[in-house]
């Protein structure tokens, strides 16, 4: 069973459960105060505006007691995927490197973006080929990936970048970068290995043909990998 953790202010939690179940993966909502259930095969930190984005997006949820359990589970190899606000929570809780901060535009941006698969050798990208271009929605005000240059170089050397913003042809350009993220980074893997990853775009919003795109299913299939 995949636990989708609901914090006060999460709002993509039910979407994540629905999307996982439509792929045949058993998923349940878990209220953060209830703690992690005993038998958990994976964890989703869902999108939303936990605790009103007070202080910094994700800062409050990252310090809630359930995140100690999430870190322990991640240490033991349980897959963890942070989406949007979940990505901010993941970086704020040091599960993943860097920070997601105010968009270069200083505006909330809600649009479709193209992403290039940078490393297809992770659970979250094994459904794609390296260089594939997928289209996913973004909806965030604080999605600009920020990290110091040396650290970014290390992340790139270690193949820890899983997605970069690109144009429809797969060119990673400043124009295709919706939020000013360093080196167009849209998603990275965790400090504990590839089984932990975060990304700002919303794969769970691109899993049903009726809603226009199923490009996100491959990311969620990471829980079955």
């Amino acid at each position, binding site marked *: 069973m995949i636990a989708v953790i609901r914090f006060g202010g999460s709002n993509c939690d039910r979407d994540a459960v629905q999307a996982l179940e439509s792929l045949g993966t058993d998923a349940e909502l878990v209220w953060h105060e209830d703690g992690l259930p005993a038998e958990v095969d994976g964890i989703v930190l869902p999108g939303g505006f936990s605790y009103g984005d007070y202080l910094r997006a994700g800062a409050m949820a990252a310090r809630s007691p359930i995140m100690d359990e999430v870190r322990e589970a991640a240490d033991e190899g349980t897959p963890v995927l942070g989406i949007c606000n979940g990505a901010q929570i993941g970086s704020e809780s040091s599960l993943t490197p860097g920070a997601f*901060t105010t*968009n270069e535009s*200083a505006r909330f941006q809600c649009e479709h973006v193209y992403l290039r698969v940078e490393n297809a050798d992770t659970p979250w990208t094994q459904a794609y080929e390296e260089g594939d271009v997928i289209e996913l929605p973004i909806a965030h005000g604080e999605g600009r990936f920020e990290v110091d240059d040396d650290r970014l170089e290390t992340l790139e050397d270690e193949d820890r970048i899983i997605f970069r913003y690109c144009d429809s042809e797969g060119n990673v350009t400043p124009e295709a970068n919706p939020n000013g993220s360093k080196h167009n980074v849209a998603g990275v893997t965790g400090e504990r290995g590839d089984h932990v990853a975060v990304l700002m775009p919303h794969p769970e919003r691109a899993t049903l043909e009726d809603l226009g795109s199923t490009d996100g299913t491959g990311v969620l299939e990471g829980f079955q990998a």
Partner: protein
Amino acid sequence: MTQFTATVTVRLKSGVLDPEAETTQRALERLGFELEDLRSADHFEIDLEAESVDDAAERVESMAERLLANPTIHDYEVEIERR
């Protein structure tokens, strides 16, 4: 025990883009003000009881490290005053 007020100032590290500050600067310029640069910072005032200034500083620095600042993008300063 002595009562102190600690002031924590959290700033973006130099070189980290601050889109809100840039927008604010542009708005001031639109109002006709002339300025060279504008930087923003978060400012927290914390009242606490501690054995000494050092004790207060240590506790507040730990608060800054663990929550008030994000070391990836921020620098912070702590000042302690008797209340």
